[in-house]
């Protein structure tokens, strides 16, 4: 008898505390050095982009052909390029393009993908079937090829590169959101809301959307790194950002590749900037996942 009583008490659910997402994230960042490092890298990239005017020692477009292809020195820590522009300043300004492209492309891609996913998951039926087949068709084309095709049809520019990247992002996002919505729909509070006659928009906005934001944000942070990489690739292939705008990918392709042997710093520093930013965003995505995974969000 005593044993039975003890078992019942063992199975009693102890009161748990649900911590906020910010606190959970901070908790993980503090505990995991990689999380901290990624946060620092991100902060660095963001601050560099915001304060490029203050941080860059030279005008990134100012040419000084007399000192072209100078190796890294105190005056020019990353050296100079083929027409004597300061590579350090160009890398700093390049962060603006990368961040801008990342923000807009991922923003558009995530927003559109999220709405498609929400509609598909919530409505199901024919709408779901049709939209998801369209998404399947888009996903069947490799991302870079699709982006290249879009930019080739439009016109090489940073804006069109952003749009192309957004289109690449949409299908994947819509699928993840759709899955999350299908799962969230099974919750009793959604059924309850439906039972008391809540309108569909209200159910979607108030009961489903807040429960699918975590996967959206996690995937968006990972896509951010990919977007930077795709922009760099498009610029590298000559269909993204146009000269003389300082873009990491463009720097890598135009001068970095051409003068690789004579001036390796022209390829190394923009390449390193791309790697660092992409690495930062990827690791930060992992950190977000760790922090916001429902299994880890409960304390006790």
């Amino acid at each position, binding site marked *: 008898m005593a044993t039975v009583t003890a078992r019942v008490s063992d199975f009693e659910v102890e009161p748990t505390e649900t911590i906020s997402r910010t606190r959970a994230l901070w908790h993980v960042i503090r505990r995991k050095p*990689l999380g901290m490092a990624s946060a620092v890298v991100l902060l660095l990239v963001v601050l560099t982009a915001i304060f490029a005017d203050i941080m860059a020692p030279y005008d990134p477009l100012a040419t000084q*052909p007399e000192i*072209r292809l100078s190796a890294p020195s105190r005056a020019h820590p990353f050296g100079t390029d*083929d027409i004597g522009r300061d590579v350090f300043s160009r890398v700093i300004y390049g962060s603006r393009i990368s961040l801008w492209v990342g923000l807009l492309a991922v923003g558009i891609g995530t927003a559109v993908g999220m709405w498609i996913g929400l509609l598909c998951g919530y409505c199901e039926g024919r709408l779901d079937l049709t939209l998801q087949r369209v998404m399947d068709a888009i996903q069947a084309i490799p991302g870079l090829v699709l982006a290249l095709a879009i930019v080739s049809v439009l016109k090489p520019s940073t804006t069109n590169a952003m749009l192309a990247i957004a289109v690449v992002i949409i299908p994947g996002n819509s699928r993840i959101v759709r899955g999350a919505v299908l799962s969230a729909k099974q919750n009793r509070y959604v059924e309850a809301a439906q039972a008391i006659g809540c309108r569909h928009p209200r159910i979607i906005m108030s009961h489903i959307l807040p429960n699918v934001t975590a996967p959206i944000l996690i995937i968006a942070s990972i896509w951010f790194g990919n977007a930077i990489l795709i922009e760099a690739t498009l610029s590298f292939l000559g269909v993204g950002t146009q000269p003389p705008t300082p873009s990491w990918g463009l720097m890598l392709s*135009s001068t970095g590749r051409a003068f690789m042997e004579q*001036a390796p710093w022209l390829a190394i520093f923009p390449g*390193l900037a791309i790697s660092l930013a992409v690495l930062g965003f990827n690791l930060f995505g992992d950190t977000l996942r760790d922090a916001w995974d429902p299994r880890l969000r409960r304390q006790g």
Partner: protein
Amino acid sequence: MSASRRDFLKRTGWGAMGLTAAAVAGRTPATWAATAPYPEWIPASTKPPKRGGVLTRASQWDPPLIDPRLTQSVGLFQFAGLVSSRLIRYSFPEEVSGPSDLSLKPDLAESWQSSPDSRVWTFKLRQGVKWQNVPPLNGREFVAADVKYCFEQYAKEGVQSFNFREIESMETPDKYTLRVHLNTPNVFFPQSVAESVAVIFSREVLEEDGDLKKRMIGTGPFILKEHNRKVRIVLTRNPDYYDKGRPYVDEYVILSTPDTATRFAAFRAGQSDFVSLATPSEAELLRKTNPNVQVQAYHNTLTPFGVALAQDRPPFNDVRVRRAISMAIDRQKQVDTVYEGHGIIGWGVPYIYYQDKQPTAKDLGPWWQYRPAEAKKLLAEAGHPNGFTTTLFYYEYFPQMTSQVQLVQSDLKKNLNIDVKITKLDYTTYYGRYVEGKWDGLSWGFQSGHAVGLDERTYQYMHSKSTKNFFKVNDPQIDELTTKLRQTPDRAEQAKITKKIVDREFDQVLRMWMPYDNGFLMVQPYMRNGSPLAIRRTDAYGSPTIARVWLDK
């Protein structure tokens, strides 16, 4: 052993940082030697030529299509002149007195002569020449009717139609004689048919296929064995070539290699037998690893590239705007830096046709000097005191071009507040848009590099009615002078008229030439007789020279 994604990222990050530090730390500031004392000209070998071997070249170009009626692209003419012959040709390296020797030699025609008024030209063809032994030609005899048919087709459509439409009629009194009647006198007609683009193609292929996009069969020293777009072109020796014993090599392989670094690497590794370079530092770099290679530092007689302005509409139809822009560009700085001093300031008509020495900046006149203050004043007079916004599209033929485009943009912004929005295009889009002429603003324009003859460089490229007037020149004086030039047989008089054309061009800034490299050709130690000549680069439009190249192995 397995590594997690994080481990991988972590290790990659540390590895990249280490490599960066190692690469940058080992570098000293780029101080390249001034032009090394490379010869301007490598004379032909005196040794008896050897037969056999495979000649290979990593090429930056790829033919957009192989129909010689439809394109003048260097991608095609880097080999078309080896598959097909012309009536007349320019001299090969072992036949000339120097790189600027532009004397004509017989090719399919043994001799040629004109009527006193230069309107009727008679060509006596070489007898016994056979088409390549490939279906549907199967080695049949080459006759005058073939040339007549070919010239008629050139006149019908394509980029060369303007040249060939001056033919009023043709007659073939016998199998080996072609008589050409021109609409107007043209003393340069033999030069026109000797241009590398005037190759004789076969009637049968055109009639069977409807175009020449799939097959190329000619009477030249090589047979086109394989054309795999963007991969390679393989030419194999034509055993029935009329010039017995030639060509010397069994095969010529052209590997499509658009990336400069890859071309250099191929040359270094011995996978490419010759390569063109733009700057002394590139030459030095290759010489460091391959000290035994032969280097020729040739001198260009013209520049093929310049800023083309839409001068058929405002604001560029105002000569003051063109002059202001020209004065705002520091060309000498481009020569000194981008081309490391081994370049020319830029002009479009080969100077060898009107003077002995290479022009200096001063020779080009007041509008070609760097005078930003005067430029600003002139632009204000033209009604643009605050500058304006325009566009510029280009294709990067070589990396130095992008440097130049950006320097021009920077000069125009700094000196005239002209905001130039640059668009870099792929080759096909660029070529199509530029040649079609339906563009506004600016383009980094070209005049085709093939043209050796004076008529081509003047009348064909500058006359307002020409289909090759890519720079949109529309000047009655130029029309008159270029027409007069082609009717003037006397060489001294030709030089005087040419100078007048050039002076007028510079004064009106009709074509805004930009600096260009003087160039280097680097060849493997065993390659003989491949020296480039004035306006005839062995790797480009001067490819027929390959028929005389041999490998001393």
